[in-house]
């Protein structure tokens, strides 16, 4: 699981899916809102390993990164395996870019990465909202 997530959002100068706790997000949600998807996950992970064995001769996690990518592209182009892979992409994005309260996005790494200030810088730092007529309107 970690290996797949690490390819969907890889590590670089900023944390990737693994360091951001995406797998923790998935584990958490699979006991909550995504509980009905437990079976889908079990079957899907087995299918990914199966596809990996067929294409590259080894279980997915044991492959070098370049070969993992090739296997994922193979899976993405297989109409039978694509739905589960799409689900994984969606859940990885949720775990990485979503709110940390759900178990992912550890230390708000993705928000820091995209440059989203947290806690928010309120607009009132820039404008006097008590009197909008005085608000800055440089183009008027």
């Amino acid at each position, binding site marked *: 699981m970690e290996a797949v997530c690490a390819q969907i959002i*890889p590590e670089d100068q900023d944390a990737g899916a693994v360091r951001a706790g995406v797998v923790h997000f998935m584990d958490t949600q699979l006991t909550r809102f995504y509980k009905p998807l437990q079976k889908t996950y079990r079957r899907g992970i087995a299918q990914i390993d199966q596809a990996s064995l067929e294409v590259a001769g080894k279980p997915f996690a044991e492959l070098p990164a370049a070969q993992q990518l090739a296997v994922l592209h193979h899976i993405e182009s297989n109409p039978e395996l694509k739905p589960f892979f799409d689900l994984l992409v969606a859940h990885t994005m949720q775990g990485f870019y*979503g709110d940390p309260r759900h178990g992912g996005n550890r230390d708000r790494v993705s928000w820091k990465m995209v440059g989203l200030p947290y806690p928010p810088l309120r607009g009132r730092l820039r404008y006097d909202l008590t009197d909008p007529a005085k608000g800055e309107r440089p183009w008027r």
Partner: protein
Amino acid sequence: MALKRVNAVIVGAGAGGGIVAKELAEAGLSVVLLERGKWYSPFDCRKDDLRNQRTSPLGQAFGPDDERNPRVLVEGAGHERMVRASGSGYHNNAACVGGGTFSYGAMAWRYLEKDFRMRSTYGRLPGSTLEDWPVSYQDLEPYYEKAEWEIGVSGDVSGDPFHAPRRRPLPMPPLPPNREQELLYPAAKRLGLHPFDIPMLRNSVPYNGRPACMRCRWCVGFACEVDAKCGTHNTVIPKALATKNCELRTECVVKEILTNEHGRVTGIAYFDAHDQLQQQDADIVVVSCGAIESARLLLNSKSRFFPDGLGNRHDWVGRNLQGHTYSGAFGLMPMDIYDDLGPGAGIAISDYNHGNPGLIGGAMLANEFIRLPYQFVSMIPPGLPRWGKAHKDFMRSAYRRAIAVQGPTQEMPVFDSRVQVDPVVKDHWGIPVARLSGDKHPHTIEISTVMAGKAEAWIKEAGAVQTWKKLPGPGLSAGQHQAGTCRMGDDPNTSVVNRYCQVHDVDNLFVIDASVHVTNGGFNPVLTIMAMAYRASDHLVKQWKGTRFA
């Protein structure tokens, strides 16, 4: 067991129902207002980007819940599937006190004069039930004004030469612009367009005893943390309750409307919060559940007199389901422009609502609400991978440079886009669920595609170095802007309600929500729903004779 009889029972405490409750209660009628959802407060703003009314991978924040409220969606080629409330294809609108107005983006548009006369302006369109409204803009104008002042609207439409005549300005000035608006305003001017400040049901100054917007990034889809958004939940519904003539009952799911042997409505049967079946007798029943659920309730109310459901003698209930086809464009500026000033949307043009060569109607175009990182994940240029290193690089470099403009294309109503009740699937209470089917009219797609081009030209002029379009896709359209299913008209053979929202063949039954919209304008519909609710209530109160309705 029947509960104490009242003058009026209103089903649904949203944009329409909330207003009707207040108007009737203030006129002295005894009112019961039923709502299937809960009454949330500003403290329920959880700022949860994965669980809200706009983005719901982990569920809807303000209902309905997934477990008890399925629907059936029939897609192209007759393939049908059950859909959950938070899933795609459900066409949800919130289920709570205030309805959609509790968590909406709050744009407060008046439709234009031509929006009420689409058929006489543009003629017949094959494959569409495009028609004129039986009421005109002038009929609604005083009620638009009432909605703007009672519920509270900020903005400034004086820069818009296309707006319809109005007697009073808006009660509140607009919020100061964010960076995106500062770029888009002069760009529109250079293109010869007419930009102006979007009217919004949001306090820009303290109003109605509530504070001004604090400009956070969690707006559309969320409860307002400081209660600066104006919905029916914090304006007219509290006023209705203050009259002591109105009782609000939450978590009540209406099963059917009851009729007697004279073909008149006598009340409703509903399941209360403990799933107990109750009967509420009333002189008048007002249905305000939103276009999908209102049609479902009428269709589920079958009797000897009305074997196909109430108001459905000519098979028009549930027909012409429509929403808005959103299209637009995204772009990347050469520099960071993200300034974290909510709500984000603030500037619009109405230049393309009408008068587009070869097209029927058009759309208002506006800059988009603040895009939270998870929402931005799918706003990628065509050709960019959905995952992997390239996607991450894009997110990192593009998020603060993004600019977006989009608009709601006025849809061409289609007779076969419709709500039915499913013959098999039932909800938690054993009530047959809504079954949605149909598609957009090809011309809707055509108009919407042109609008995307207009939006792209605007952001290019604003200085975007890379732009791409958000194009309309096929499939049924309804969603939060759902409308059209109980069409208003003068001819009982081709409509469901008359010009006062009264069902043609049942004089004490009313449908007061977007269901009655003949067409849905190229604008967000809520202010029109509110104005129509004021107008219908006004008429209803004038016709009210003591203890009965005549």
